[in-house]
């Protein structure tokens, strides 16, 4: 059961990130509201993954700040992230889902219930006892999603979750994303698959060379992009 308060909107103010003198992101100001999935898109090296990690506090910004609504300390507990390459513990499928629930300090019965729910959601219940790392790539990514979903986060970050998956597995992941979004989880994800963004996005943040050039509802972004770079990107031209 989620408390009635919310950690959204998420705000980035003049966010910058540099490493070794290379400016990867600069001056990113962004407000992400509750609602349908927000997609971060843009050419390779635009800074999508770095922005996602800054928002999830895996990286410390070198300029600006990320802020959430609600009580301080609440935000960290109510977000989760799934990575491009799922990081699975060397344990069974079920133990992987239980692990973060125990870290979150949930009671045993609640952990079991949520883990079951998570595995049901992604259709891995039958494989609960299998070693997680022996699953196929698609199953591994679904397990990572089940594990994140079991935490019942208000915000779920997904970093190119389908980048190394075949079309069938990609479709399974997309269905899970839709199901999570439908139950009120705010999805914030990166992709290089424009078709996927068209299918799933509520709004689109277009990044180019470390800057946010556009942030608009998906429909208007795909119909009438405002910047030259976005037009070129959507046409499939090589932009950098």
């Amino acid at each position, binding site marked *: 059961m989620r408390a009635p308060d919310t950690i959204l909107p998420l705000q980035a103010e003049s966010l910058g990130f540099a490493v070794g003198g290379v400016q990867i992101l600069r001056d990113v100001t962004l407000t992400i509201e509750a609602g349908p999935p927000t997609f971060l898109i843009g050419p390779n090296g635009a800074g999508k993954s770095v922005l996602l990690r800054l928002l999830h506090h895996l990286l410390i910004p070198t300029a600006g700040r990320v802020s959430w609504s609600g009580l301080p300390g609440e935000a960290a507990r109510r977000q989760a992230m799934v990575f491009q390459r799922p990081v699975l513990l060397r344990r069974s499928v079920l133990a992987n889902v239980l692990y973060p629930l125990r870290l979150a300090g949930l009671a045993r019965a609640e952990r079991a219930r949520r883990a079951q729910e998570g595995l049901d959601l992604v259709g891995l219940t039958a494989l609960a006892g299998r070693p997680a790392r*022996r699953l196929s790539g698609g199953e591994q990514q679904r397990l990572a999603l089940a594990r994140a979903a079991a935490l019942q986060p208000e915000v779920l970050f997904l970093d190119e979750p389908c980048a190394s998956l075949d079309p069938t597995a990609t479709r399974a992941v997309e269905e899970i994303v839709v199901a999570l979004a439908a139950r009120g989880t705010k999805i914030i994800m990166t992709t290089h698959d424009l078709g996927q963004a068209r299918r799933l996005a509520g709004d689109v943040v277009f990044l180019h060379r470390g800057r946010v050039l556009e942030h608009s509802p998906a429909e208007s972004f795909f119909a009438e992009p405002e910047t030259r770079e976005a037009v070129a990107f959507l046409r499939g031209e090589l932009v950098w």
Partner: protein
Amino acid sequence: MNDLASAASTALRLVATADPTVVQVVLLSLRVSLTAVAVAALIGLPLGALLAVARFPGRRGVIVVLNALMGLPPVVAGLLIYLLLSRSGPLGGLGLLFTPAAMVIAQAALITPILAALARQVLEGLWEEYAEQLRSFGAGPWRAVPTLLWDGRFALLTVLLAGFGRASAEVGAVIIVGGNIEGFTRVMTTAIALETSKGDLPLALALGLVLMTIVLAVNALAQGLRDASARWAG
């Protein structure tokens, strides 16, 4: 040549009939080395895991020292423990010198750095893989230590076996602090050294056979663990 053949056949008979002297020496060897591994594991494995996740000034220096200590000559380890436990030493009052307990301490001192250094290597790779995901779960380096120890369990068992191999095969440390007292602190390696110099080749050979068998079994076990780990880790 004839001597050798008759020594070998006597040795086989000693092993086959479970000669009480042989059995007693073998059992003490196992007891001392297994206890030493257990003690060293309790200290060395968490230490290695901490070194794998912690970032502090001087960390590289600690790792270099630890790696160097892997090559600590057993006689030097024995000498240091001897100095600690001898009557005039700081722990002399405990009266441990020339007891199996002293041998356990010496072997544990010898292999703790080995376990810590190997565990550090194994777990550092695991930590690199897990760090981001664990931080996303809200687990920092300290909380990661038990997770890494568990998830690295197969590799760490191999590390323990390496430690056991080293402990059971060394002679320098146990002979100094144990004294090779018959029926009390005599283990396989010290007995082999003594019996060989006394010319009692059958007993030395018999113990050598048992020692080799144990080493073989340990390596077979290590191989089995690697296979099991491959099944889990994929």
